[in-house]
């Protein structure tokens, strides 16, 4: 039977329709993007301080037109405190979810997650070292965070590689070892060092999105976009790596190069989010899992969709963190862990 005949006969239209196309990815991402913008809009009306609704909406839409009649102090709350924090939450969520989805594909393990693998803690230690040794240089923080994340990634990967490759159990075990080791380093350094300069260890272990500088915010947004783009570009290779490095190699993937690019891009994402907001856990686990559940496992859609959904997730989590016991606040990592840990247990029990 010839190829053309096969296409004409055996129900070929179904197969053609079911493939993932650029258009389908685009539509899914567009819907998520609209959702994200709506969430950002909605959550910027919420906070420990009640702002006048109509004037706030007007100010948001016009980006602070004075005719909206928003009081200057309310304007300061909205544009100097609340909105930057929401945008930071979005970029942190996007970074961690995109990185998580990529780690999972690359390491063939649905439980791989920057926080659980100790990569966030690696970035945290890097940032702390930057604060101790190059306190004056703001750029040293994300760079050192990136280096710490990359180093932790490589250590976990090496530890996880056994005779039979990196099994999920070995990987998680390696992650636990690296995480606990680096957590003690964090507690040790925060206890010994001048804590006002390097912040308290709850920041490093549970994350906090308040009080970022505008340059840090710009950096976090830029890294989130860039890193997610690099990972998405490598998504087709990750699709094959997800099924095994040897298979991927046989099918034409330059495994070593792709692995390095993905490790670097993901480390940049984790590094920039940790440098600006500490270690927010479980985002990279929960979000890619939900995305895969609803959109399938093709990384060309999983990675960008996870980035957008991660942004939505962390924006909502942080809104909860800053409103449920207002005017007091919770660390955002406590909220994400509250959602993430049960899911982790569920995935573990399901035997993945």
């Amino acid at each position, binding site marked *: 039977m010839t190829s053309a005949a096969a296409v004409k006969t055996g129900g070929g239209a179904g197969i053609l329709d079911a493939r993932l196309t650029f258009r389908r990815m685009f539509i899914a991402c567009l819907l998520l993007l609209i959702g994200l913008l709506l969430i950002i809009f909605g959550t910027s009306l919420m906070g420990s301080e009640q702002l006048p609704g109509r004037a706030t909406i007007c100010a948001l839409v016009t980006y602070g037109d004075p005719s909206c009649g928003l009081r200057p102090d309310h304007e300061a709350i909205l544009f100097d405190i609340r909105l930057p924090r929401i945008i930071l939450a979005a970029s942190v969520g996007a970074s961690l979810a995109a990185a998580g989805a990529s780690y999972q594909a690359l390491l063939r393990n649905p439980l791989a997650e920057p926080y659980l693998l100790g990569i966030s803690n690696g970035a945290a230690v890097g940032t702390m070292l930057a604060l101790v040794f190059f306190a004056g240089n703001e750029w040293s923080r994300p760079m050192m965070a990136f280096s710490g994340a990359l180093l932790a990634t490589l250590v976990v990967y090496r530890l996880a590689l056994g005779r039979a490759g990196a099994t999920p159990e070995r990987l998680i075990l390696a992650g636990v070892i690296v995480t606990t080791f680096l957590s003690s380093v964090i507690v040790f350094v925060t206890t010994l060092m001048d804590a006002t300069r390097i912040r308290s260890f709850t920041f490093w272990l549970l994350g906090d999105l308040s009080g970022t*500088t505008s340059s840090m915010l710009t950096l976090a947004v830029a890294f989130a976009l860039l890193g997610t783009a690099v990972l998405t570009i490598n998504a087709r290779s990750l699709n094959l790596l997800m099924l095994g490095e040897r298979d991927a190699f046989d099918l034409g993937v330059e495994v070593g190069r792709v692995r390095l690019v993905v490790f670097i891009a993901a480390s940049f994402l984790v590094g920039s989010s940790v440098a600006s907001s500490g270690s927010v856990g479980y985002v990279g686990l929960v979000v890619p899992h939900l995305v895969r559940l609803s959109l399938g496992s093709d990384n060309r859609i999983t990675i960008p969709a996870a980035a957008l959904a991660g942004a939505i997730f962390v924006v909502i989590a942080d809104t909860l963190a800053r409103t449920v016991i207002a005017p007091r606040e919770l660390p955002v990592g406590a909220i994400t862990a509250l959602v993430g840990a049960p899911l982790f247990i569920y995935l573990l029990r399901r035997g993945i």
Partner: protein
Amino acid sequence: MLLNHVFNSHRSQNIALLLVIAAWCNASCVRPNSEPQSTSLQQVREFTDETGRLIRVPLNVARVVSLAPNLTEVVFAIGAGDRLVGNTTYCDYPPEAKAIAKVGDTLQPSIERIVALKPQLVLVSTASQLEAFTKQLNDYQISVYVTDPRDLEGVFTSIQNVGLLLGKESEAVALVNQLRARTLAVEEAVKSRQAPSVFYQLSAEPLYTAGRDAFVTDLIRRAGGYSVTAEVPGAWPRYSGESALAARPEAIILPAGDSMGADTDIASALRRSPAVLNGRVYRINGDLLVRPGPRSIEGLEEMAKALHPEAFAK
């Protein structure tokens, strides 16, 4: 830094019963028992400490270990510093305190070191949360006296109680009278003045402040200020940046230059607050603000001068 602050503060989650007892006790709690009991060799008195525990203390206490910097300061201030045989790494005032044997830090003292120092009495602050530790010390026949100062009155009470324990009643009373007079002088000076709203920033990122149960909240009130976070539950709550800005604090007080670290920055959320715009940000040695001890009065005076400079202008 937070740890240190937390330790120095009062515990918010104290059991209600103990609160009642503490309130009822006030200054009269430490009193020699009507019928002095004697063990085999030594004269022993019974005391009720500031958390309502009944303890037995030798009549003459010659060897004391202090597990909190404020208590070390109290012991020195009533002239009993020579009886201190051990204290913590946080105990850095007066300078002589640094030379005393260290038994670890306030949160994790070493029981072995304490036992080896053979103290007759160990002074503990409620904030250090050493209940289990206290029980362990009791097993070694070492008396543990727990102090629980929640405000300046509580500090005066603790000073007098430690004076009684160490047989320095008159010195303690004299010290308390002097401190009370200085307190009254401050309160008198600021009495008729408009209280500025004050935000106490413990740390910038994340933003922590002083809540209802913090000792410094009482100091701010007495210094003629109005803490915008005075009603927030807890001692050191994490606080919303937008609420801090919305409260429009006229003055911001930062603990600084203390044993815990260098100067902090103002939280970014507060950069457009009236306090920052008007240059009313005051950095005060944190030890004076968060250690409920004799030097708290210095903190009170500094704060009052900062909040009401015109009241103290000569």
